């Protein structure tokens, strides 16, 4: 389980307008590219100083590839990161607050205590 890496994906995509569009249009390609090229990037270091041991589990890859925000929540990805990025990608296809409400409804089966988000 690499909750930290899920959060790192969501964080680095959400803060970059080009990556937001790329992940919306081509989730499978973006996830594969990101894991190969970006997962090991230490954010305040030069590219040669890469982290060597970070990778997704297959379930995590699948959740990201399928834009499955419910699975991401259940895996303990940080809910703020997921929500912010998914609003950026999909709110535009819906009326005011329609997407946010549907996003919550899709999780109605989840009750307290929620999955741990500590990294």
């Amino acid at each position: 389980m690499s909750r930290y890496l899920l959060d790192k994906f969501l964080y680095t995509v959400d803060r970059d307008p080009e990556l937001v569009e790329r992940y919306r249009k081509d989730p499978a390609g973006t996830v594969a590219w990101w894991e190969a090229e970006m997962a090991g990037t230490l954010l305040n270091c030069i590219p040669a100083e890469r982290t060597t041991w970070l990778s997704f589990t297959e379930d995590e890859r699948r959740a990201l590839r399928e834009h499955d925000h419910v699975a991401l929540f259940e895996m303990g990805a940080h809910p703020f990161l997921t929500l912010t990025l998914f609003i950026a990608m999909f709110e535009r296809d819906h009326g005011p607050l329609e997407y946010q409400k549907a996003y919550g409804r899709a999780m109605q089966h989840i009750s307290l205590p929620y999955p741990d988000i500590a990294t």
Partner: protein
Amino acid sequence: MAELAAVIASTHHPFYYRASTSTGADRPPFADEWVAKIERFRETLTRAEPDVLVMVGSDHFHQLWLDNMPQFLVGKAPFFDANFYNEEREFGLPRMLLRGEEELAAHLLRDGLDRGFDLAFSNELRIDHSITCPIITLRPQANLPIVPVYTNIFAPPLPQPKRFVQLGRAIREMVESWDSDRRVAVIGTGHLSLELGGPRQFGEHGPDPEFDRKAVEWIASGDIEGCLAEVSLDSLHAPGNATHGFMDFMLMMGVAGEGQQADHVDTLDLFHTMEAYFTWYPNGLPQPREAAVAPAAVTR
């Protein structure tokens, strides 16, 4: 010594800017009432005639990240750029530039470390909507120097609620021991019950109106002990998964002091969350400085 001119605690609703500036069909039905409440709240700061603002907030995974996460951080820089691309995108917030007050920041860092708070610091900090929202609501001219104080209410493991209260008490003492003749307002923002990215998000009200009612009572009456007796890191999950932001209100209760009734209390029940606004005047209701000076001028 510096004077603590006002203590202000507020929610920081990122949609206020857009709601208050929209017109015609885009203007939400609750905008006018919201603006009226904010304008009354703003007057409580204006009346205190502050020279410097200590701004307590929390970075929302903008500059601060999980590879190096501070619990409490003081920004010490001559300027602070503000707001990020994803805040422009989602909330329509403008880019801003605020002046910093480095002398007070240095004092808070030195004195805070000596008091046992191992404060992190940043000399190049881009601040986010937890600090720019109260600038927009309370001081839209954005013309006063600030000292940002960031807390971690966001990325567990988090400090205990009592630690937020302790830091608030220390900030008050440190502001009042700053060797300066300036008037300082301490402004902090957090949340009442709030759910983000979970099944209870974006409801008709905040996810837990009963928690909100109790929280407003604790804050308005300065009931720190009562609040600490009921609030724990575990208990804050129940009212909503982002409710740990309430700990910044607890910090501000620490600044205001045990048993201190707020001089201004207002709330607004919005969809999704309850807004709440509090102002304390530690040295009594402020008198206009011009009025204090004018009689002396006459007697000369």
